[in-house]
């Protein structure tokens, strides 16, 4: 029986961490994720968790401490945003290559510069090729649920990869909304205990962690990381199925919203998907066949499944909340276009970079995208595939 509550996204993430009660949390505060370690340190002080809380002096140290803790055989978690993740960057790759299932709560914020504290996905996109599993969350509920599922996925023997749960800075992290929580006991039962096969403090089976890995083996080890990432897809589906049997809340690799009979669709991630749902509902009332595909699992990218779910459409708009500044298009756009191309499906596609630095994305903005798509459906032509949405100037 779920518990009806109202929490902000940060409170939801911190509550999930409290219920998971990991062995170690090492964190350094940064807006807008600061509240997560702040609330968690209160749980430690109150004795509601028995976690070792390490108040480190930087994010580089936060990730390093998590790596040390996981190598030793314990469960470690952290939280950060934007430049905090940038400072972790060196250790982010160490964590995934050592196959340590660390769980990180990433509250998405624009990476400087110039300095901005508001939401975009440039922080997440900076580590999209680092070998971390990346789950995106539309709201506080999904941030909570994804966190509860995180360890089961990351620690699976076929995966053994670190995992980050993303949610939109301020937009969901600081918005109080309804949420269904599960009881501490049931969370504990679902998450289970962590018994790693190999760990540093196992004196019966000594191992080395992080030695030199040159021409003879690094390639093979990278390929193994790649295989683990591919295997993660199935594990995510299995864990999500168990989660649904327990809570009744369904999760797949992505959410299809009124997509099956749609003519055109938006593909996006996090909170904008919620705004898009409201617009889709309104357009449907007017007989416009609009749909949405919301990516939940961004890494591993479910290429084949995405291609199949989108192949019947007459026009697609992919929304990127980070500009790759590469003269081609945003990262999600490139992933979706390659997915369709490799599956030998062709649908006219257009990319919108939106919401940079916390620029508000309104229902009107989303509606304008569907208006553009209607035109593309009519003509079959995409004049300029790399566009901006909500930018304060006339497009040239």
């Amino acid at each position: 029986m779920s518990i009806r509550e109202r929490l902000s996204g940060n409170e939801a993430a911190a509550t999930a961490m409290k219920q998971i009660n990991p062995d170690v949390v090492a964190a350094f505060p940064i807006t807008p994720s600061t509240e997560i370690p702040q609330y968690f340190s209160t749980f430690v002080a109150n004795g509601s968790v028995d976690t070792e809380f390490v108040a480190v002096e930087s994010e580089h140290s936060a990730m390093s401490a998590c790596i040390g803790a996981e190598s030793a055989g314990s469960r470690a978690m952290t939280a950060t945003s934007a430049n905090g993740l940038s400072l972790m960057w060196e250790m982010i790759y160490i964590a995934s290559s050592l196959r340590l299932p660390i769980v990180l709560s990433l509250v998405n914020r624009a990476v400087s510069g110039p300095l901005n504290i508001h939401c975009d996905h440039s922080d997440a996109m900076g580590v999209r090729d680092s070998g971390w599993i990346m789950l995106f969350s539309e709201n506080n509920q999904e941030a909570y649920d994804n966190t509860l599922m995180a360890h089961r996925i990351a620690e699976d023997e076929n995966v053994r990869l670190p995992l980050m749960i993303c949610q939109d800075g301020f937009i969901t992290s600081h918005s109080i909304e309804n949420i269904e929580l599960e009881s501490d006991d049931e969370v504990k039962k679902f998450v289970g205990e962590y018994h790693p096969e190999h760990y540093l403090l196992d004196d019966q089976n000594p191992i080395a962690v992080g030695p030199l890995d040159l021409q003879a083996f690094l390639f093979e080890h990278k390929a193994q990381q790649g295989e683990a990432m591919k295997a993660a897809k199935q594990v995510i589906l299995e864990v999500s199925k168990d989660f649904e049997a327990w809570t009744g809340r369904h999760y797949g690799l992505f959410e299809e919203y009124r997509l099956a009979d749609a003519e055109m669709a938006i593909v996006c991630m996090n909170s904008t998907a919620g705004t898009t749902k409201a617009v889709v509902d309104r357009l449907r009332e007017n007989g416009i066949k609009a749909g949405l595909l919301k990516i939940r699992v961004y890494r591993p990218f479910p290429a084949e499944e995405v291609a199949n779910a989108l192949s019947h459409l007459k026009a697609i708009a992919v929304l990127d909340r980070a500009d790759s500044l590469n003269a081609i298009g945003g990262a999600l756009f490139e992933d979706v276009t390659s997915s369709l191309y490799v599956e030998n499906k062709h649908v006219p596609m257009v990319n919108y970079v939106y919401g940079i630095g916390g620029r508000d994305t309104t229902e009107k903005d989303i509606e304008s995208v569907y208006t553009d798509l209607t035109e593309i459906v009519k003509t079959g032509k995409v004049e300029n595939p790399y566009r901006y949405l909500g930018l304060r100037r006339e497009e040239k």
Partner: protein
Amino acid sequence: MSDLIEIRWHGRGGQGAKTASLLLADAAFNTGKYIQGFPEYGPERMGAPITAYNRISGDPITIHSNIYEPDYVVVVDDTLLESVDVTAGLKSSGAIVINTTKSPDYLKKVLKGYSGGVYTIDARKVSMETLGKYFPNTPMLAAIVKVSKIMTDEALLEDMKGSFKHKFAKKPEVIEGNMKALEMALQEVHQVQ
């Protein structure tokens, strides 16, 4: 979401407009509603204009953007009336609630001919008489509940008793004053004719 109610708060940093929006979300949540309560974060400092928002509905709320066409606007500080376009997008079927003692003529001028309901309350008087200090957010919370009829007066008082007990766990001496502020504010909010 036909019963969706959207509220925009205008205040100055330090007056508790954000807290009031969160308390309103709390109170509506306790009546069984779906709620959102969120401030528009900027470079906040004491005295700077701030905006906060509420969505309240009988159905789940998926929209995650600021509110541009609110049903109600609450102005916690009337010195904002000349510098912020407080009625921007405000539905004529809705209302604006202002903490002020200014004349109806003045309000008519600064509200640029807004045709919906205009309500005022002297939150300073309420706050000084009940709390002995100027905290306008508690009276304004009662005022918006009264005007929007999100819940009954009794439901608000009952719910806030619990919330204040929790919020002021370390300052229980202020609970009574805040309850009195709510009760008095429910009587002191008047429509401008």
